[in-house]
């Protein structure tokens, strides 16, 4: 536990010492604030559903920037050699990076709770979709971070890591659009892999155990692949 804690503290320090985390948080808040204001003032809807979808799309675009450096940078400058030749386990190293990146995303999600409080004070929202939407955002960000980590663990080039992550996220987000072109049962398989199709019920207040399990499985798969990528040497 001491080792994991030391690694998490180190990762958080590395993330917040660079301007990248602050830039990502600032851009996210600016865009989500704009979306919230338009929904509330122009469309006159006390709803966070548009905000959840916009936040999810922003995560698809921003998470690769956050995760690209996590392993690729350490591999490039050689510090990964220090970590992997210490008694720390690969799983500790991966979990620390996952926890640090999730801290940034949870901070971003947490700051948007202000919008929920505003509609709570000035309106009478249906709280079910609000809770499920936030849970969906947390699960989606977990899945994206773990997959981004796995990609970053495979390369020493941050740009390659970011581009490949973006490609993977983009395909997984919109893979359901191809589903209708495919014969059964492939249609259902592609639908089942779609991040958008899995996230939509959360954002609209209809949670299913299968969607929860899907995101959990993606998180575990990403972490497993990242550990395997580190162990392959």
């Amino acid at each position, binding site marked *: 536990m*001491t*080792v994991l*804690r*030391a*690694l998490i*503290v*180190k990762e958080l*320090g*590395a993330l917040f*010492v*660079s301007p990248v985390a602050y830039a990502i948080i600032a851009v996210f808040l600016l865009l989500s604030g704009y979306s919230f204001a338009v929904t509330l003032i122009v469309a006159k809807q006390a709803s966070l559903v548009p905000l959840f979808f916009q936040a999810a799309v922003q995560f698809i675009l921003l998470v690769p920037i956050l995760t690209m450096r996590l392993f690729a940078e350490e591999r490039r*400058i*050689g*510090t990964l*050699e*220090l*970590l*992997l*030749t*210490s*008694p*720390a*386990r690969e799983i500790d190293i991966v979990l620390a990076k996952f926890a640090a990146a999730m801290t940034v995303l949870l901070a971003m999600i947490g700051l948007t709770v202000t919008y929920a409080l505003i509609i709570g004070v000035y309106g009478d929202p249906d709280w079910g979709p609000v809770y499920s939407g936030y849970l969906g955002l947390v699960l989606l960000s977990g899945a994206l971070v773990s997959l981004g980590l796995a990609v970053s663990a495979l390369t020493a080039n941050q740009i390659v890591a970011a581009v490949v992550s973006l490609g993977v996220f983009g395909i997984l987000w919109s893979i359901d659009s191809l589903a209708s072109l495919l014969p059964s049962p492939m249609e259902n398989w592609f639908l089942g892999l779609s991040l958008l199709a899995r996230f939509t019920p959360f954002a609209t207040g209809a949670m299913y155990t299968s969607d929860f399990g899907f995101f959990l499985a993606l998180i575990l798969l990403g972490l497993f692949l990242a550990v395997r990528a580190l162990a392959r*040497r």
Partner: protein
Amino acid sequence: MEGHHAGPVAAAALDRLSKRYGATLAVDGVSFEVGQREILGLLGPNGSGKTTILRVLTGYLRPSAGSAQAGGFDLVREGRAARGRVGYVPEDAPLYRHMRVSEFLVFMGRLRGLAGERLHDRLAFVRERLALDDVFSIIIGRLSRGYRQRVAIAQAILHEPELLVLDEPTNGLDPRQIIELRGMMRGLAAHCSVIVTSHILSEIERVADRAAILLNGRLLAVVGIAEIAAAGSDLERTFLRLTTEIGSA
């Protein structure tokens, strides 16, 4: 010519170690031991397998065949225990440049299971031993190459390793820093065994007890420095003779 072992139990041992990168055989059936409190120099031209051997001995790479032990523990089967007995300074001393020296050393200490009083004592030891007092609270990225090398050595000896592995430690150092480093290595060998690689033969000759000479991933010989001198030769001539004989064979 086989040199002596400095002690009865090996601090590190390679047994028919091979390492393959795809189709390339980087290390081919290398076996040698490093005795207690011994300094062993690894010599060889670029691409001879020096760094690969060090990376196997530190647990960074896994052998393709054969085995490697550190502190009596197999680096594959008992990896964590073996890695806990090794201190490693990779080539070019990679460090977290955004951290202060003190933060970095505390982090590396905790990574190796040090905490509380013991961590405090070990920090005081390396701070004094490597003369880091003046830079202890400075950000690593602002340090000179020589100080960065010292910080890298400090993190490697924090946990009192049985084996200290230094990959090209004199790279980029000025003559004064090289002389200082040589003195440090001798001092450190009072506490642990040392494996050091260098392109500079005279450096190895000055600090090492024995030298393992490699060519194209194969071990040509392990020679005792004192024995070479006693035979009226030197490491340079021995190295040239061995590498030329094999190269022309």
